[in-house]
């Protein structure tokens, strides 16, 4: 029997692992049921003895050694099987947790993209304002210069004998030409902004559609994995954070007192 004891102990050592209390706490365990090696060994020995006793088997030394060997082998087989199941379970649980994490990230990203899309759709374009980049300003400047030059060089403006009327005509033509150029630029700019907005909306719509599809696929994978492995992921709460009393409630002050009293009573129970 001593040999069996040492074999059982060795088997348990081979198939078990050490873990710190701190790590267990980190994993969220608060209470664990511990079984000492000696207790397991004792249980097996007692079980063998009891079964042999119940069967009223008067075994000689060799037969008893045979039974012990069988028990030992069976125990090792069961222990190995248990470990394999545990490993499988851990692996499935890990994959499931990773998939859940991916699902959460996708959900978060989808919400962000949907918000961006809504914002972009509702963004009003300013058709009245002309905005010019530095390059645009240089371009418009040179076009105005060309136009003014054209005005000055055509129409037979004689500045040597210029009169106030002629200067006024000149001023009016320059203003017209400049206005036409700027109005053209404003329309071009507005059209460009509108096109940019449409492109952006289209891009965001494509992204949202893609994310929705990914999300649906991930949800399906999660459900399939949960079903196949008997995992129940639970039902998510509608709250992402701790709530508390609505301070706009007209009875908030009174409720605050009640809640404090309930808390105090529970705190006293804890002490």
């Amino acid at each position, binding site marked *: 029997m001593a040999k069996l004891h040492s074999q059982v102990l060795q088997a348990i050592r081979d198939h078990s692992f050490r873990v710190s209390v701190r790590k267990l706490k980190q994993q969220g365990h608060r209470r664990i049921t511990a079984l000492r090696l000696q207790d397991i060994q004792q249980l097996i020995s007692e079980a063998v003895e009891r079964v042999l006793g119940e069967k009223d088997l008067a075994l000689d030394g060799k037969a008893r050694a045979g039974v012990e060997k069988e028990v030992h082998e069976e125990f090792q087989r069961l222990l190995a099987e248990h470990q394999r199941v545990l490993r499988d379970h851990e692996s499935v649980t890990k994959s499931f947790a990773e998939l859940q994490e991916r699902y959460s990230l996708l959900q978060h990203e989808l919400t962000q993209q949907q918000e961006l899309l809504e914002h972009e759709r509702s963004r009003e374009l300013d058709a009245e304002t002309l905005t010019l980049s530095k390059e645009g300003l240089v371009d418009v400047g040179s076009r105005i210069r060309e136009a003014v030059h054209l005005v000055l060089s055509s129409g037979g403006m004689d500045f040597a004998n210029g009169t106030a009327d002629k200067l006024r005509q000149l001023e009016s033509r320059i203003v017209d030409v400049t206005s036409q150029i700027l109005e053209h630029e404003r329309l071009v700019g507005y059209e460009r902004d509108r096109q940019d907005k449409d492109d952006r909306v289209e891009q965001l719509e494509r992204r949202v559609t893609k994310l929705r599809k990914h999300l649906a696929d991930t949800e399906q994978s999660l459900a399939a994995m949960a079903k196949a492995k008997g995992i129940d992921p639970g039902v998510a709460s*509608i*709250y992402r954070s701790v709530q508390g009393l609505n301070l706009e409630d007209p009875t908030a002050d009174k409720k605050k007192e009640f809640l404090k009293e309930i808390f105090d009573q529970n705190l006293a129970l804890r002490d």
Partner: protein
Amino acid sequence: MSDKDHGVLYIGMDLGTSRTSISASNGVRETVESYVGYPKDVVARKMIGRDVMFGVEALGKRLSLNIFKPLEKGVIKDSDDGATIEENMKAARDLIQHAISLAKPRKDELIYAVIGAPAEASIHNKKAILDAAREVIDSVMLCSEPFSVAYGLDMLDDTLVIDIGAGTVDLCRMHGTMPDADDQITLTTAGDYVDDQLYELLKERCEGADFNLNMVKRFKEKHAFVTTASEPVIATFPVEGKPTQFDVTDEVRTACRKMVPPIVDALGKLISSFDPEFQDRLRSRVLLGGGGSQVRGLDRAIEEVMAERLGGGQVLKVEEPMYAGSNGALKIAHDMPEEYWEKLR
């Protein structure tokens, strides 16, 4: 309980003698009958394939199980038909944990729960309930059952709450502050008492019929009423193996009506010891809740006896008797400040 960063699940629980109900902030609402069953031996364990069963499922397998009804008169039993206090405590712990599992909590969410327990539960009992719950949730508080009903319905001023359970009828006077011992009366003339009364009456009425208390309880839950006019209530019990019908209308009415006088007496005590200026208001705001409030016509019957003995009164029935307690507890959980939860973790 690390990595609980995906949300907060609030749970409100009504831990009752007969039924335990939960309402949760993920929309789950469940009720389980407060029965816990453990396999009688290895063969039963193998056949059932589980170490513990609950509610109706456990009752259905009662021949293979040792059945516990761990709560009596609303608190964990000190002794029972052979069951030790430790066994009842274990059954109560398993029941609480099962009820929480019914809320389908996610592993990555914080779980904060408020459990409605009878006001007169001993400190030992309350600690046992809290210990059991703490094993599976992050932070838990207890509160008085009738108070949670009133809180859930925002009736915190000048209201009399009657919570009729299986083990007890709890009456609580709400007057804008936390009710103390003088504001609460607990009666034992509740559902189980009515079952016993009906059982005795049926034994006389249905001579030779074979039935047990459990069958009577189920029958009462389906047919309970107190009104003068009613369709005939027919019970079918075996007589020497042959199903036989009995008209038990009067017996059901008589047994159910036995609840009324003690309730009105208790109402009278709570009203008469209240500030005389507000007694009328209190009389006209009697809130009837708990599983027992489903007895047909009970609200009217209480009003009639109140009119005779107390000069009038108005009884309002809660809309969801099965969940009024757990809904109220859920609301308390929701409103509780974060710092309180943290301090009790």
